[in-house]
């Protein structure tokens, strides 16, 4: 299954919401990672809306972590996650990827916190 990525601005431009829709796996993870890093060049705070992501493989986990690490290297940049399904959240927790990220239940709560 493919992955569609939509980028929009929120909170008067303070937060960029990247909505992912589909699967993040070995096929789609490179494009996903490149897109986030591209967006990161222009903005400081990215909130990734994961509510429409049905599956994330270990390649997807790595794409996430690489974007987080790149954000950390660029001072004051943040990559946060919102709307994780229980399944993806459990897998991220079990594999140790979850603690790297700020995680919000929904995009709205994320925007309140980050905006």
């Amino acid at each position, binding site marked *: 299954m493919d992955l569609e990525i939509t980028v929009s601005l929120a909170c008067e431009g303070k937060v960029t919401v990247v909505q992912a829709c589909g699967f993040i796996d*070995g096929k789609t993870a490179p494009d996903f990672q490149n897109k986030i890093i591209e967006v990161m060049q222009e903005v400081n705070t990215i909130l990734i809306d994961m509510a429409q992501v049905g599956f994330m493989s270990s390649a997807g986990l790595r794409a996430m972590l690489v974007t987080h690490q790149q954000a950390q290297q660029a001072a004051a940049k943040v990559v946060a996650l919102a709307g994780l399904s229980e399944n993806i959240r459990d897998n991220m927790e079990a594999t140790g990827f979850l603690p790297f990220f700020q995680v919000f239940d929904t995009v709205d709560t994320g925007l309140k916190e980050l905006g």
Partner: protein
Amino acid sequence: MDRIDAHPTHLFQEYKLRPGKPYPFGATLVPGGINFSVFSRNAGYCSLLLYRKGEREPYAVIPFRGLFMKVCGNEPDWVDFRIGNVFTMTILDIDHEEIEYGFRMDNPALQHSEYGKPGFFRFDPGKTLMDPYAKGIGGRDEWGREPDWTDPYWHRSRIIFDDFDWEGDRPPEIPMEDLVIYEAHVRGFTRHASSGVKDFWAGTFTGMREKIPYLKELGINCIELMPIYEFDEFEHSKRDEATGKYVKMNYWGYSTVGFFAPKAGFAATGSTGDSSMVADELKTLIKELHRNGIEVMLDVVFNHTAEGNEFGPTISYRGIDNPTYYMLTSEGYYYNFSGTGNTLNCNNPIVRTMVLDALRFWASEYHIDGFRFDLGSILSRDAFGAPMANPPLLETLAFDPVLGKCKLIAEAWDAGGLYQVGSFPAYGRWAEWNGKCRDTIRRFLKGDSGMAGAMSQVIQGSPNLYAGRGPTASINFVTCHDGFTLYDMVAYNGKHNEANLENNQDGANDNNSWNCGWEGESTDPTVNALRRRQIRNAMTMLMVSQGVPMILQGDEVGSTKYGNNNTYCHDNELNWFDWSLTEKNSELLRFFRLIIAFRHAHPILRHRHHLRNRDWKNTGYADITWHGTEAWHADWNGNVLAFLLNGQYVEEGHDPDDFIYVAMNMHWDALPFEVPMLPPEYRWRMAVNTGMDAPEDIFAPGEEPLLEDQQQVLAGGRSVCILVGRKN
């Protein structure tokens, strides 16, 4: 910069490929693709089979030798993708997450053995063979999920990411003498409904991670995991025809399918079918254990594989090179020094390298701190089963640079009658499970007379066995997964293994146990009080002995297996840690925590070198002295023994310790022990008295009350007292 070898040289159908690299063996992610490499000395040809995950049939079968199309020139080219005895090629442009792979091998020129018959070559071109170096293995992804038995490929090689973010994790490298080992089973630790972990985590690596605070509070600093290499829980399983439920499973897992892959069914993420997640989950557990100062040791089974004997399944090794991987008789039968059907040919140079590669992989890729080798004596046998004076494998492991800081521990016996406790080829590195320590403590504990002399050796770290090797060569234990739990050891005279459905014929008979007057569960308060005391006595003896103590998961809360001393096959409450016992037996748990804390608090209990029984520093007291009910007079033929450790004799790097006096009265009546006189200004304090009820059975370090009578201490019948002597 683009690499030249990221581009194909040949095409096979639509698949792009190029000559591979023989090292490393297995499947390796390389720029643009995957390098495959597999050894076989006797295979005449080999094919690589690629599967989409979980599918029965391969979507590609690519021979390592044949007619390929050249990319440049688009003309046919006869190629042999082989270097020496290694078949190797690189396949480009495939997504490793989506595939499983295997090999198919044959040599029509060699006589093939029939199923069930002896023979040397077991090539079967109809079988897909798992890669012996597979880092991920599918097929049993979720514990206990019924496999499709008609699937022609049971254990399926997978490729994993090896880029885990360890966040600077380093192995703790805790000195051997400071270890307190906790032997645990990943599934059994949190599978019980009482564990309190969420369903998704129950019985998994993550479930164990949730319980790290418990382990830390207990005070252990090394967890030894029973087998976590991929195994098949359905091997030799048995189903109840009436209920349809499995009544026997390969629960313990002492039967390796693959030496490089973690047991997927032990991972909560196993059900995803993503072996990288399984690996990441285990690494996350290890990282968190290290953060909490706990080392991770693996119980590894290199003595045999899950392929069994002539009647066993062809999974990998026998279909690749049977006479290389297995010890065979001159008639072609499998030697059976493991008691399970076959014996890995460990000292064959190829197999030796595989074992070394596997251990290096676990030490470097998973940050494993040590290994305990199941039936380790097999590793000292040659290809015909004869014990070797200088076994190359054991020497190689002892001197290997990557394993240079790993603990190496042998179960120094095998099922073929080789018993090497005290004589395992050590090369200055190897420690041993000290089975004689177990037997001695058990016999002394139940009051056998004449055990005081043997017990004094255990107290000193068994210098009778390990002279020149030091106390750290001795892994001291009273219980382990094999045999009774500590509670059962004081509740049963004989084994009760009926649930194993082997007519109570399996399991050890030399248990050296005593039921304290009633076989099994008892409502008699006198019997139960004595059992509680005996458990405390055993644990105290273990913790005041030089060497490395090991305790069994659940003993700290009085776990019972109802007299079953061989629960290898039970995926149920017999093996699952019942967390409600932490409340029910909280006083026992408190005792365990404090006696472990006592050991950590006293470096005089943790020598690297054997005590000399002399006052070689001229301090007024020898490093260790022996006593009976009368100070300075030990009765070596009785069931009473006392000893005094002089805290001035700690190893270099420690401040002087207290005097420690231990009186062990395994006589049934209370006895007064005359206490050795301390130097002026020193006073005796009571640290442990197993004859007392909680909380006066043990006091936390620094909170020991002053002994009223400084001349003697009354040790109750079958009780142990520990006094500490210090100035304040």
